């Protein structure tokens, strides 16, 4: 019985052929679906039940009795959405580079991805502070609370994804992401895409449907 050679293989043995880490990240994503479903469910359930303004898609009277524009600003978020979609595209290319051992492709696109992500978070920070400026605090009304909570938790996920991607970038920069370790980027990328698809749902549900 040749133990030694058996082990080398046994450490990577999986019954399905799918790598453990990849399966794990997908399982986690499945669980996250329920997390966002609950938040979106709460948002939609409470949609339109505010006692007073601000309103997402209609004019509203503020405390002073002044008529205010609708809260949500579609052009800004459309730009943010585009950024996120771009980043998903970029990270796929980065992964492609990593798998083929093309360091330039890997690093270049990864940096681009991170840029887009940072700008998206920046967009959200700007949006939130702008809303706050316009008189929509966290507790102002149900719309405000549900909106900030849903998009805020999404933003937190984006931030975590960024942290992860940046960590992978650092590893890559130090030349420690050879093709056989591309899975480390693939996991981050999968999570990143997931964050992106959640936004694909949030964008119409929150911003476009009145």
């Amino acid at each position, binding site marked *: 019985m040749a133990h030694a050679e058996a082990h080398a293989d046994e450490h990577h043995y999986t019954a399905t052929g799918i790598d453990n880490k990849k399966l794990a990240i997908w399982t986690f994503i499945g669980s996250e679906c*329920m997390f966002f479903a609950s938040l979106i*469910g709460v948002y939609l*359930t409470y949609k339109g039940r505010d006692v007073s303004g601000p309103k997402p898609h209609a004019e509203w009277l503020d405390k002073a009795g002044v008529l205010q524009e609708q809260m949500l600003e*579609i052009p800004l978020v459309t730009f943010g959405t585009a950024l996120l979609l*771009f980043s998903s*595209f970029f990270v*796929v290319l980065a992964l492609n580079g990593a*798998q083929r051992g093309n360091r330039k492709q890997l690093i270049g696109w990864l940096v681009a991805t991170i840029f887009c992500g940072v700008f998206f978070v920046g967009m959200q920070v700007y949006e939130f502070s702008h809303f706050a400026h316009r008189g929509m605090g966290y507790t102002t009304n149900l719309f405000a609370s549900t909106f900030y909570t849903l998009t805020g938790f999404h933003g937190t996920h984006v931030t975590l994804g960024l942290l992860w991607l940046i960590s992978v970038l650092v590893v890559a920069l130090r030349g420690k992401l050879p093709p056989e370790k591309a899975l480390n980027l693939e996991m981050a990328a999968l999570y990143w895409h997931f964050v992106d*698809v959640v936004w694909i749902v949030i964008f119409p549900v929150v911003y*476009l449907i009145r």
Partner: protein
Amino acid sequence: MATDALHAEHSHPGWQTYLKVAVVLFALTALEVWAYEIVHRHQPAALASLLEPVVVEVLLILSAFKFALVAMFYMHLKMDGKLLTAIFSFSLLLAAVIVVALMVVMHYLWSHAPTVNPLK
């Protein structure tokens, strides 16, 4: 046992495919925003009155398309194991059911339970 990287190189699509997907994604997003604008500004009027009754469905279908594209191509579900697709689809299905169920039970309640004193 195939190492994943090798496996991936053979079956994962090239960057042309990724680019095509990206283009479609942007087009669909543009469509979404356009649909929103039509209804929002009520212009052009003909299109708006056509779109208005179904705009929610249209938006949801468009975003479902986008969702599917990212999942299938960028997340490689189209090429990776069926098991992963099963995990994701099952979760999504249940997630959708939960969202709808929450809305239905709460709105059904609000539709029949009086909020002001029915004796007054």
